[in-house]
């Protein structure tokens, strides 16, 4: 039982990862076909995983309703909305006209607006948080301002500004981001390797 609970998941992680890495380096048709199947399994499992968050939310909000907490009416609304989308969605999938109405007039506006509110946060951040306290912050601010001056009024008032902005984007910005990209890639490769060989086990979760 210990084998099934602890060793088997690590073996599956390693074998699945190894097959996909090996097909990248060795051109063996049977190996590539097996890898293609494994990727299709990954897509299906990822689709199942999309609904995992529902368990936690239902537990949280149903607990509030049971306890008659002050937020209980809002929790009820959340669960009713969830149920509405699930019932209509499972009956029609995303192809049905009723589901499309729900998506167009309920989900789309809230999703779009939730990100649009960051417009206000960035205004607040520019006013309250952006303090030029040293030379690094000054360079950061200068770079931000140069990027913002490349459009509209500024481009017509200062015709040379888009060229300066393009140079800053092409040379120092790209150089800095290349270092971040290379560092990030090394980190990704290292972490992926650690997961595949079983050194990282956080994804396996708790439990006995």
């Amino acid at each position, binding site marked *: 039982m210990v084998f099934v609970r602890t060793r088997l998941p690590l073996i599956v992680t390693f074998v699945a990862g190894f097959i996909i890495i090996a097909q990248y380096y060795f051109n063996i048709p049977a190996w*590539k076909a097996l*890898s*293609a199947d494994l*990727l*299709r399994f*990954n*897509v*299906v*499992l*990822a*689709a199942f*995983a*999309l609904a995992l968050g529902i368990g936690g939310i239902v537990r949280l909000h149903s607990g509030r309703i049971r306890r008659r907490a002050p937020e209980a009416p809002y929790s009820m609304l959340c669960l009713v909305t969830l149920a509405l989308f699930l019932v209509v969605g499972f009956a029609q*999938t*995303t*192809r049905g006209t009723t589901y*499309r109405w729900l*998506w*167009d007039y309920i*989900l*789309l*506006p809230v*999703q*779009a607006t*939730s*990100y*649009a509110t960051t*417009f*206000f946060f*960035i*205004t*607040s951040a*520019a*006013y*309250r948080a*952006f*303090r*030029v306290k040293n030379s690094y912050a000054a360079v950061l*601010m200068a770079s931000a*301002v140069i990027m*913002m*001056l*490349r*459009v*509209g*009024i*500024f*481009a*017509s008032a200062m015709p040379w500004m*888009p060229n300066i902005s*393009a140079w800053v*984007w*092409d040379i120092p*910005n*790209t150089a800095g*981001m*290349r270092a971040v*990209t290379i560092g990030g890639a090394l980190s990704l490769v290292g972490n992926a390797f650690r997961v595949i060989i079983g050194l990282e086990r956080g994804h396996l979760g708790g439990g006995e």
Partner: protein
Amino acid sequence: MLEKLNNLDTRILYLIMVCLATFPLMRPIGLPLPITEQVKLCYEAIDQLRPGDLVFIGVDFEPSSAPEAWPQLLAMGRHAASKGARIVMLSMFPGGFRYEQQFEDILKAQYDMQYGVTLLSLPYSAGLEAAYQSVAQNLKGLYTVDLHGTPLNQFPLWNEIQGAQDFTMYIQIADAPVAWLRQLTQVPGLKLINGTLASAASTMAPLWQSRQLSGLIIGMSGAAEYEVLVRLPGPAAAAMDGQSLGHAMIILCIILGNVGYYAAMRKAPKTRSAG
């Protein structure tokens, strides 16, 4: 006096920002729009498409990024359609399906594209990077039905395609800046074009410089520039006036905040350190 700038109610700033961003929508100013090199090269790459060339369009964005991404899709997608390219749309984001449907309707109506012969829409596929790798290596194994639930083997276009290697170009309108490029760059001969959100522009800079991308459109301003180049007015160009006024206000906020901060620091009584 200047230290009072440190204590402005931010709701006043919000109100000013809302007015500056909104007023030009009602009364367009018509400010000039310089065309950047990335957009010019993107335009030239799509302009070189020949009738019958197969083009992927990745509709990989959610409603949260639609104000930037939808104009990019309209501009580049319509340009590709006007060159007679055959288009296959797909999406790896849960919200992309609706934009695929809307763009499919536009292509059928405005460019007389025949669904199943010169146009195809594929459904959402979970797994993100695993799905992109499947597209690159095993396209026909991944999809069995189209966006509308019809078996794909009923369409002549799908039966003609062997895999991603048959395609000339992949136009990606992306919320996930790099995952798609990591996988699609492995397909030999496939030109990659990216319409990215402005917030991801710096992330794409090294990939642009290394010419892993044949074209790069950044945010709403990039879409507006493309609309000017293809002479198809769209939602992006109309919104650009508010953009530059908003930038001016942000720069002013930074200046006001710093002036107020340093004025307050200068006025604050100097305290002795303990011990």
